């Protein structure tokens, strides 16, 4: 197993005591595509970032088990974590406008990721950056490599981000709402690109989104999170067999062509889901 999580808890101190953002989450991930779905604040991003130990500094994290390829992430020191971050697991975030360094060119940022993990001269790394940009289907990779992030469109920026995270050839890719900030027309393109690259390189993928149909379309398995815990986990093809009322609520509030409804249902939240 690439990732093994058992009873993960993430807490934050507040004025009125500790607030629990992730409670007793357990999941495993191999060389497959797992989707985590949930609304904002459900703890899906924190769960994913725990795998790279990239939580905010005031977060308290505990778990019975938190492992990456057998390495205990809770006791690993900074150098050990650095050998995992980037090198073996990459992270793509929501909005390239903020997640790319605004004062470094796209090429320099990709080349940096390459050199840190693979070494080599500046020249080799710069060439590798251009190759990688070509791999993420950018037509004019040399020009994009010399551009600053603000000169790139959202879709282009996200391709740069993907190229950067693929540079050291990792085994796991975490994509945290990779298309939420993009135009609808570009969203599918980027997701197909990610899927294609992941399948071709035989990587594991953890796709985080609030969009249940989208996730089920691209993933093998789907975990649904609500208020810090996983309420349901099932194969992507068997969504219709979901039993938890929250999952059902998410599905029923969507319009479909096959079962037209006069009025879409509104999610009725049950306080008992929180316990």
């Amino acid at each position, binding site marked *: 197993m690439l990732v093994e999580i058992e009873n993960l808890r993430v807490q934050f101190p507040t004025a009125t005591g500790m607030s629990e953002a992730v409670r007793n989450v357990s999941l495993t991930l191999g060389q497959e595509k797992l989707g985590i779905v949930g609304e904002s604040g459900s703890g899906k991003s924190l769960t994913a970032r725990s795998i790279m130990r990239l939580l905010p500094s005031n977060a308290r994290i505990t778990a019975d088990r938190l492992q990456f390829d057998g390495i205990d992430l809770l006791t690993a020191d900074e150098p050990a974590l650095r050998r995992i971050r980037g090198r073996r697991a990459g992270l793509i975030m929501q909005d390239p406008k903020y997640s790319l360094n605004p004062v*470094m060119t796209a090429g320099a940022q990709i080349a940096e990721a390459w050199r840190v993990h693979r070494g080599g001269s500046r020249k080799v790394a710069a060439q590798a950056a251009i190759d990688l940009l070509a791999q993420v289907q950018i037509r004019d990779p040399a020009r994009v490599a010399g551009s*600053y992030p603000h000169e790139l469109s959202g879709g282009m920026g996200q391709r740069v981000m993907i190229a950067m995270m693929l540079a050291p050839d990792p085994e796991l890719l975490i994509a945290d709402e990779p298309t939420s900030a993009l135009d609808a027309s570009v969203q599918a393109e980027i997701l197909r690109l990610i899927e294609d690259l992941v399948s071709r390189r035989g990587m594991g993928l953890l796709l985080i989104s609030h969009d249940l149909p989208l996730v089920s379309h691209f993933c093998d398995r789907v975990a649904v999170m609500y208020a810090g815990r996983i309420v349901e986990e099932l194969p992507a093809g068997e969504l219709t067999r979901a039993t938890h009322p929250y999952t059902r609520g998410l599905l029923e509030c969507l319009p479909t062509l096959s079962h037209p409804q006069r009025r879409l249902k509104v999610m009725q939240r049950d306080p008992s889901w929180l316990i």
Partner: protein
Amino acid sequence: MTGHRLRQALASLASVPVTLFGLVLVTFLIGRAMPIDPVIAIAGDHAPPDVIARVRLEMGLDQPLPVQFWIYLRNLLHGDLGHSVMTSRAVTEDIARFFPATLELATTAMIVAVLLGVPLGVVAAWRQGSRFDHVVRVFSLAGQSVPVFVLGLVCLLVFYAKLGIAPGTGQLDVAYEGLVPHITGMLVLDAALDGDWDEFWDAAAHLVQPAAVLAYFSMAYITRMTRAFMIEALSGEYIVTARAKGLSASRILWRHAFGNITVRLVTVLALAYAGLLEGAVITETVFSWPGIGLYLTGSLLNADMNAVLGATLVIGLVYLVLNLLSDLAYSLLDPRVR
């Protein structure tokens, strides 16, 4: 360079003449509002009435105010700021004589302030909330709160009078006075250029205390701004990206976070340098440092109007240029087009 950026740079350049004109107008008006009769200042207290009348006519003081301003402006364009009563030299000559000492003092202070302030701010931001951060916070708040003249006096008391490890006031020991050739007007530099190392070390020793006092004042500001910028930069999403790439802490800190604040920091440094001029006025008074500040306060006490206005105008001018540089740095250096 994009057109937008060039336009922005030109816009900040275009505002200069207007501000400059305002600067001159304000100094002119201050001069006319002064309770001292400029005629008596020139002709002397006991000049006969006809002499006074003649001088008044010569100075154009019988003219209406706008005409007087025009005359003032015209003289200014010819580099004529009038004569100083105190030194009985042309004010421009005086300023040229006193300014290098201020430049020497302020630049030394600036170098010290930057070399200490920037790293302190960066590390405090990196260790935000730690004991180190708190110490730096108090240390820099104290620097912004301590009156420069008190700090100067206490330094003289402790290091000169009690411990005897620092020289007293002035730019050079009396024994060396007049021995250093006037090349740049900055004594430490001149002594070095002259190759006289005794004089060099004496001048340098005299520079240490006032420069340190002055540096503390701006270091406090630089540290606080650096820390604030760094905290903001470190909370950016691109820092998470950098960490996710597996970069080392120092690379994240300096290449990614610090790399993002350098342009803003340059503008802060320009403003800090301008602020040093203000501190220099007091520091020079305490340490009898023969710079433009001492010249200004000296002429104030002697009601030497032309000298006061000239010094004020020149300091305002330097201030303006530094502000302009800081604006230009922003629009020319930042790769992000606003």
